[in-house]
């Protein structure tokens, strides 16, 4: 037990990958075995992270459960792991969504072994980003998550998967190029990649000295945008979002769940973990630009979403819309770091990350459920399904309401906090964003109307296409999500407490 208590993070981090490697040696063809094995393997990190959630001392400063191992000594990089309130939230989200996504993919019948292995590798990749306190290791995991996702889309996606997966890959890799170069710049300058040390060195550079033939402030500005663009693509912030609808739409259901639920958070996490501490000056200076982009994402995301006829694409665009609020909160925090308003906005942004993880994963799953039965995602071909599948309808409405921001459910809490925090700081942008929120309601209701209400499309009522009700496994996937949505909506304090203390200490 001693071993476990001193190696919590590395256990959580590497368990899925080790399990995946172990799976490699399991005999082929046993699809059932693979599914349950993968599910079990992903539940263990979840249990461990729940356990550290309770052990976590939210009022203690700095990082907890730290571990440090040799990795790439030659470059001064170590495998340094640790969590604070911010990353712990994300770790919890990741370990929660992965088993659900795996459970959601029990209907996969092709190449199950490879699929499950990729999922487990993906989990390690995502967790690594949230846990690492070393910039190089951060980048390593940042990139590693890409490849399983690429193959998940490319191998198990729908018709246009080749295009979508390639676009996803090139966008993200291209985006991380700047990140790579900026990280190298930092490493070259200071000979270490340790995040804490780097932050100190980097922020204490004299702005009027010169680096690489330019003034420090210029270099910093360039490096800031190198980081920002990499994260912005991942979030994604308008206008870097165009890969997202394609990737989400073409990905298999569970892939979309993880993509929207966790991968997008990586970008936002990058903003919080790296950009705000490393570039406080630049963040303030460019906050307006960031807010403008965030607002554009909110408004255009909502409008685009409204215009879709493809159910999954509609949900995909809603991610752009929702993540816009996260960025808006970050922009506000960057503008006035340390003020109460900024803290509120940040609280909202982080909670919004968590919430969007829940609701987007849920929405994608529900789209997947109906797609699997109807083999269409065209909204025009649904209609009046509520009478056929009332349970499904209920769940869909519930999840949509969370996404819409209905008071009493989680979405409302976080969006309210963001808007409340940024109102005094970025009033104009916030006003426009509120208009965007209006469209959010519009497209969600439109989707509900097209799917559940209106005249019944007779095609689904009888015969071979008769729609079947959501089954137990699928309900089991949705249950934890809905539970959390409700719980946070009603009693957000349990999670906000952790987040808030982290924010207070960080900024």
């Amino acid at each position, binding site marked *: 037990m001693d071993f476990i208590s001193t190696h919590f993070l590395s256990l959580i981090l590497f368990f899925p990958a080790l399990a995946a490697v172990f799976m490699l040696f399991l005999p082929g063809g046993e699809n059932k075995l693979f599914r349950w094995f993968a599910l079990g393997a992903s539940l263990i990190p979840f249990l461990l992270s729940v356990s550290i959630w309770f052990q976590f001392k939210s009022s203690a400063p700095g990082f907890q459960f730290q571990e440090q191992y040799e990795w790439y000594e030659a470059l001064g990089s170590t495998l340094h792991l640790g969590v604070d309130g911010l990353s712990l939230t994300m770790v919890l989200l990741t370990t929660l969504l992965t088993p659900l996504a795996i459970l959601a993919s029990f209907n996969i019948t092709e190449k199950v072994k490879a699929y499950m292995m990729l999922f487990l590798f993906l989990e390690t990749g995502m967790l690594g980003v949230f846990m690492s306190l070393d910039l190089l290791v951060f980048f390593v995991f940042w990139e590693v998550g890409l490849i399983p996702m690429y193959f998940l889309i490319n191998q198990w996606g729908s018709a246009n998967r080749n295009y979508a997966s390639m676009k996803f890959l090139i966008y993200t*890799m291209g985006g991380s190029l700047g990140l790579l170069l900026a990280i190298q710049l930092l490493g070259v300058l200071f000979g270490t990649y340790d995040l804490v040390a780097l932050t100190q060195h980097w922020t204490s550079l004299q702005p009027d000295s010169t680096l690489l033939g330019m003034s420090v402030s210029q270099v910093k500005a360039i490096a800031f945008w190198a980081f920002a663009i990499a994260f912005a693509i991942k979030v994604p912030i308008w206008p870097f979002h165009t890969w997202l609808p394609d990737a989400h739409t073409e990905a298999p259901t569970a892939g979309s769940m993880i993509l929207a639920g966790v991968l997008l958070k990586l970008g936002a996490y990058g903003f919080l973990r790296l950009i705000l501490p490393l570039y406080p000056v630049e963040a303030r200076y460019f906050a307006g630009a960031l807010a403008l982009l965030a607002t554009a994402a909110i408004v255009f995301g909502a409008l685009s979403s409204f215009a879709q006829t493809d159910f999954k694409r509609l949900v995909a665009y809603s991610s752009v819309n929702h993540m816009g609020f996260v960025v808006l909160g970050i922009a506000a925090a960057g503008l006035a770091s340390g003020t109460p308003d900024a803290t509120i906005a940040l609280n909202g942004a982080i909670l919004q990350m968590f919430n969007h993880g829940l609701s987007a994963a849920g929405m994608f799953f529900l789209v997947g459920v109906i797609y699997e039965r109807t083999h269409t995602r065209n909204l025009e071909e649904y209609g009046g399904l509520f009478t056929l599948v009332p349970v499904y309808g209920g769940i869909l409405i519930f999840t949509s309401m969370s996404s819409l921001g209905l008071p009493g459910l989680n979405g409302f809490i976080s969006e309210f906090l963001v808007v409340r925090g940024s109102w005094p700081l970025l009033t104009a942008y916030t006003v426009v964003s509120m208009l965007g929120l209006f469209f959010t309601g519009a497209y969600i209701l439109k989707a509900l109307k097209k799917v559940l209400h209106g005249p019944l499309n007779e095609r689904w009522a009888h015969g071979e296409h008769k729609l079947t009700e959501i089954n137990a496994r699928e309900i089991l996937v949705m249950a934890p999500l809905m539970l959390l949505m409700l719980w946070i909506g009603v009693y957000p304090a349990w999670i906000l407490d952790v987040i808030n203390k982290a924010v207070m200490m960080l900024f």
Partner: protein
Amino acid sequence: MTFPVLSIITFTPLVAALIILLIPANRKNETRALALASAAFTLVLSLWVYFSYDQTTAGYQFVEKYDWLPALGVSLHFGVDGISAPLVLLTGVVMFTGVLISWGDDHPHVMAGIQDRPREFFAFLFILAWGVLGVFVSLDLFMLIFFYEIAVFPMYLLIVIWGWNVTREYAAMKLTLYLLIGSVIALVGALAMYMAQYQNTGALSFDMLTMESAGFSQSFQIIWFLPVFLGFAVLGGIWPFHNWSPDGHVAAPTAVSMFHAGVLMKLGAFAALRVGIMLLPEGAKYWQWLIMAFAAIAVVYGAYVAFVQMDFKYMVGFSSVSHMGLVMLGFSTFNADGLLGSGLQMFSHGAMTALFFAVVGMIYDRAHTRQIPELGGMSKVMPFATVGFIIGGLVSMGMPLFSGFIAEFPIFMGVWQVHWFVAVVCSISIVITAAYIMRNIRQVFFGNMPEKFEGHITDITVLDKVAIATLCIFMIVIGLYPKFMAPMVQTGVEYVLRLLGGS
């Protein structure tokens, strides 16, 4: 007298080649078995050298020295340092895997392996390996060039006899002439150094360790650096002298492509470093900008040309140009990070590209075409090869957790310290590489299998799988655990830096 392990490693392939030649021509399986046994023996010895290399004392180890031609100061002086020890290991690995995949397959639709005169094939291949190993362990300039040339000429025969019958004659001749021109020009430079040392110190010696302190004048170094460096670097595929390389790769039989891209190109880079940069440091500093420019162009240009290739093997060939450009780029930084990266990249690229060529060869043997658009769906019939190629592809893209990242990252760090603009420009190649690698994986392995292949394509053999697994293991181990190789390369790099005057 310590155990002369380096001479044994070096001469094992030669002895094996001679014995193989004595086997009657119709005993093909015996020939292969003997080849495999001696390759395995070499691999084991090279592993032993690798793991018993003492990183705390660094410097040249396992040194052996026998006078060979005292009148001219030629000696058989062997030794490995932190840069060459991994390359010796790489040679062992590529030799072993190359023999494995040349074994062949009895399936009627498959024309894998070497069926025509395997005796001569393995003999020539091993003579090639003899030369390669000799270069990596030689500390004597004369013997280095001696082995270098030995490594060149078997290529001609191997390509022209067992190569792809469409272009083999053209490609083999082109390759040989390019390499010969490069090596003879380097030879002239080496002789000039030899004579200049004689004038300066009165010592007639080809020993590179004494040449390091020969006190070549700055103007001498500036004049002779370029011929020596570029002469060797031709074999390293440096732009604009890279033209032979893709043609050669494409025309060569699979095992030879593996050897060629996996080891031989490292030979050029290694010799360019060992003789060019280490013996003529002042000249190197003077021409730094030029090497860096050439290397940077190679990196980006190679990647772009690889991107537009329709022939699978050409694509891999040009990707080699791009990756070897990174090695040269690391050399041209003259700092600890860049050189460390180059040392690692030599190993990483060697294993990766050998793997690529192995898989490409397996596919071609079965599908009889290499046109990317004509291929598809290979993952269904050869999943193992697919995984292998994907791993190789990830290494090639510089994906973290694989050796490519471990190697490329320090190179870029080194370049940052010299000129940030070059680093930014070269980083574009990463995305281009990702694009073409992923596109090809998708098309060749996962696309729809053309109807004509249905039922005709069979899985690869067990030996092929062993070869793929061997290569993959090294790439993954280094990626996960850089300490496997990085500290060793570092010790070698320190030595180079000392010669460069600590810059």
